[in-house]
């Protein structure tokens, strides 16, 4: 008898919670739960979160050495490119002054955020330790190592949910940097892809994909990855290209939220 009473109470609570959800009940309760879980989450990520990936990497020692030598080469190449770009940036500023352009105001700031946990493996999302209390808003871009990794989809009082760009529901307006083709970045089981690129655009392999800044709160020009190839079939009215991001989404540690001051 006591068992049935317990079951009825539990089911009543669940039904009540279900009907109160549209009134903001679940958002408030989730905020409290994650506030309680936050110290455990931060401690776990800081300790075990570093040990397990390290143990996993020990099995790929040879690959890591090869990767390191490739990265050294790439770093040298990027340093030379950076030198040239700094010069171009300077020239650009001088020309803008000559033409009477106003210096563009930087109305955004980056805010570091730590990962607390993940609520489900099927939803590619993360919970971070910053929320409305830091002025974050839904739709704000989240970056890691300079690359876009997701957007804020549920901002609560003291924590927020980040939907990663690899999630099927994530949709980000992007532009291909060399061919200037615009499209929509979508995640999914088969990896990242840019859809809806007009057919008259000739996409190039290894060209950068950046955010277009069209719609939403994601600023323009955040790097996402490189084009690896065309995956659309003949006869389709739009092109679709596959994208590779250098970010390992399973090993994300510290994220940065781009907070727009508007």
């Amino acid at each position, binding site marked *: 008898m006591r*068992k049935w009473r317990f079951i009825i109470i539990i089911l009543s609570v669940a039904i009540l*919670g279900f009907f109160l*959800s549209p009134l903001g009940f679940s958002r408030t309760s989730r905020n409290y739960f994650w506030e309680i879980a936050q110290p*455990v989450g931060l401690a776990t990520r800081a300790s*075990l979160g570093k040990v397990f990936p390290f143990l996993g990497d020990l099995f790929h020692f040879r690959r890591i050495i090869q990767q390191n030598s490739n990265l050294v080469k790439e770093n040298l190449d990027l340093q030379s490119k950076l030198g040239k770009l700094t010069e171009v940036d300077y020239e650009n500023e001088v020309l803008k002054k000559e033409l009477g352009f106003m210096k563009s105001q930087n109305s955004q700031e980056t805010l570091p955020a730590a990962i607390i946990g993940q609520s489900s*493996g*099927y939803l590619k999302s993360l919970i971070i330790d910053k929320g409305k209390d830091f002025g974050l808003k839904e739709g704000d871009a989240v970056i890691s190592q300079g690359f876009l990794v997701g957007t804020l989809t549920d901002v609560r009082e003291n924590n927020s949910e980040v939907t990663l760009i690899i999630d099927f529901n994530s949709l980000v307006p992007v532009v291909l940097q060399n061919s200037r083709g615009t499209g929509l970045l979508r995640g999914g089981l088969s990896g990242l892809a840019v859809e809806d690129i007009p057919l008259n655009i000739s996409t190039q392999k290894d060209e950068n994909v950046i955010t277009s800044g069209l719609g939403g709160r994601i600023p323009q020009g955040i790097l996402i990855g490189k084009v690896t190839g065309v995956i659309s079939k003949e006869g389709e009215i739009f092109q679709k290209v596959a994208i590779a991001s250098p970010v390992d989404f399973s090993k994300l540690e510290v994220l940065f939220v781009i907070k727009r001051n508007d």
Partner: protein
Amino acid sequence: MIKLILKIFLIILAVIIQVVLMPILSIKGIWPNLILVSLVVLLMLDFQRDALLVAGIGGIISDLAGPFFFGFYTFTFIGFFFLIIFLSKRFFSEVNLFLITLITFLSSTLLGVLSCFALGRLPNFGVLIEGIYGAFLGLIFFVILISFNKPSQIIKIGNM
């Protein structure tokens, strides 16, 4: 009373571990549900009262953390509670390693399928990973519980 509070505290801790530690131990981004695995193992070992507590309290706390609509885990776990009792009465009277592995595999896989549907997606191979991983954890739980209890106590699944 103290025992009950301790059990509830352990369930809350298990849910926190589920969302905080388990993602680090994920395989291909998928990890099993600790609450479900412990519910299945407790039921198979005839700890019905504890299993019901795990299903009820674990379900409510999981709903507080989870990405699904409120009540998803509670209804699912209570449903699993009755389903496993029904299957136990009908089809098996003795508990062994194979049975524990099979039931935790099927339960975890089914939870994965339900999770995909709750998110409006079709199930993918991830549900099988969840099933296998869940079965492995179930075995560990089973061995731990067996080592703390006399084998004679855990033979038959009783009546509700």
